[in-house]
């Protein structure tokens, strides 16, 4: 069961990392417009940044 001494800290760090990545995605505006991103491939204009 010694492996738990490694796994528990890892799970804690992982949880915090997940939180951080999600925070970045949210505040970066990736969830602002979910519908139009999917339809962008259908329009013939040049891809936007």
């Amino acid at each position: 069961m010694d492996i738990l001494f490694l796994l528990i800290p890892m799970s804690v760090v992982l949880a915090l990392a997940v939180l951080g990545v999600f925070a970045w995605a949210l505040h970066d505006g990736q969830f602002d417009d979910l519908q139009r991103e999917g339809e962008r491939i259908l329009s013939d204009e040049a891809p936007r940044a």
Partner: protein
Amino acid sequence: MNTIASPALPGIAPAVLDDPVELRRYTRFSESQGQPAAESSLRLGGLHCAACAGLIEDALRRVDGVLEARVDPAAERALVRWDPARTRASALVAAVQAAGYQAVPDTAAAARTLRRAEARRLLWRVFVAGFCAMQIMMLATPAYVAAPGELTPDMLQLLQWGSWLLALPVMMFSAGPFFSGAWRALRTRRIGMDVPVALGIAVAFVASSGAAFDPAGPFGAEPYFDSLTMFVSFLLAGRYLEMKARHRAAETLEQALDVLPQTAQRLDEHGIAHPVSVQRLAPGDRVRVAVGDSFPADGVLLDAPTQADESLLSGESRPVPKAPGEHVVAGSLNLGAPVTVRVERVGPDTRYEAIVALMRDAVSRRPQAVRAVDRWAGPFLWAVLLLAGAAALAWQAIDPARSVWVAVSVLIVTCPCALSLATPAALLGATAGLARRGVLLQRLEALEALAGVKQVFLDKTGTLTDARPAWCGATPLAPMGAAQQAALLQQAAELAAHSRHPLSQALCEAVPAAGAFEWKAVREQPGAGLEAQDAQGRLWRMGSAAWLGLAPAPQSGASPQAWFGPPGQPLLRLSFDESLRSDAAAAVQSLQAQGLALALLSGDDDERVRELAQRLGIASAVGAATPERKLAVLREAQARGARVAMVGDGVNDAPVLAQADVSFAMGHGALVARSHADAVVLSGRIGDVAQAHQLARRTVRVIRQNLAWSAFYNLACVPLALAGLLPPWAAGLGMAFSSLLVVLNALRLAR
């Protein structure tokens, strides 16, 4: 009465759009990399799918000088960054219009952006708290389920350290509002709900940290990070719900106050009209007002006689004739002929603004219930703090190791979490239930007042009757056959098609024009009627009795009538009536069946109001009432101790709506009335008011159940906590369950 609430976006003259006074209301000027840039918010119309957004963006980007254009199809808004040196705001609007859509300036954009940011921040706080609480729960589970000795001390220690690390974001980020709220309250020497909450959280965290890192220390060996974080996320979720309701109310209010820049046609010294912003008008200016437009300011009629629809202001649904030299009121509609008006009063001096001010006054006097709760909360919170302190001291003497935990338990168990959720959860549930029935509640507290309502005042026009008159029949005044009468009627309808008068429009609707007759030299004499020549050059007239050369009929109180025929020898009398809504009678009955006393309150002619009241079986009726008189009648009823509801729809109803304990506005009514009513009946069916009343009564029952349960829970658990029988985790768990119970009970109302 529908003119203001029309859903189509009106066109605005380019000169008004580019007027710096108006421009500042919807555009932010900034400078980036030495380049000046303007950022304008536009409200869009005509969008029907998400692809439209792309088309509008393309159209905007093609305008020379546009730096960036973003369209939000869900909100129907566009945000455009442009270079003031290379283009103008009016060019942006023109580009959108050329693409086949409508655009008007969005003056409320700044406030909406702020609200959105606030909602997002709070939601993120809830998420962080909830996410971390679940992780901590996982780490805490072994300590609860393991048999004694199964978990080695160093493993337990590791789990506790992990919990501590995960609790950090909750304490430092999610719980921020509680700490800042408590600090604000303390700085102003008041005590708020946040103080015991912040204290409880802080003490629990410090003690838990002590227990986690120094199991032999003064805080014992048991940390409670799990109950702590769960507690924070539940409280935050409650706050989020409250904020949502607040924002929705603010939004509806804004929609009404968000007055579009209005254009006026100002005449210069050569008599040439120039479009200017209404805000640019000054007393002494002469403005041209087309038929169908509203008067931009209070003023005096200069050239021609006309008719004005002042129904928004006086409630009188019949157009008022105006002769040159008479005063016209801002906001009323010009129905008769294009006229010139000399401006006398503008902006805040106008009568329209005076009515709005009257209404604001009535609104600001209301929130007494809120202050009562504040007064009651102060002593309660002090009692909680004292109780917790006393418990800590007492346990210091009995068992010092447990004294901190007892204090924390008391603070958590007395936290009025379920208690504070009890009312808002039920109100929100009821709001959702009402929305499904087509009644939008704008002020949550109105439901409680509605349940206790004893008397309902109904406006007549637009509430019980349709705002426009309906044609109800023609009476021949000379001997004639049925075929001849039908032909005459057809002739009259053809003539009426030339006029915009409400009676003419009603006749045209009832008798569709067939194009069989040709009228020549059609002339409308405002306030009198129409005049025209038939194919043989014979003169015909249609309109009032005097216009046809009859003695003025004694019909002041009766429903409106018109005559048709050659001057001096009318052949047909056309009768009109206000059409009663089809559901009015049934709705009146169901309201009365619920034990409500009904009364009619209208600005219309007294006799007509009484007649209608009699027809519907309403005992009390007050006619010819000005807004001030309506207010007085309502205050009188309230002084007798009755809780009063008001149903109305015009601008003139707005002060009365605000004074009533509960107010309903019809969905098609004036925007100002809608924004100040407690609830908007979207369908315009008065029967929905009866349903809302029923739901309000159920809501109050659910609120009482919720309050009783949470008060019982809190009262029962305080002694347990004081006795040290209730560890903090049980206190937190109990709180969560009682909150859940309260919310589930409230959700019954949403169905």
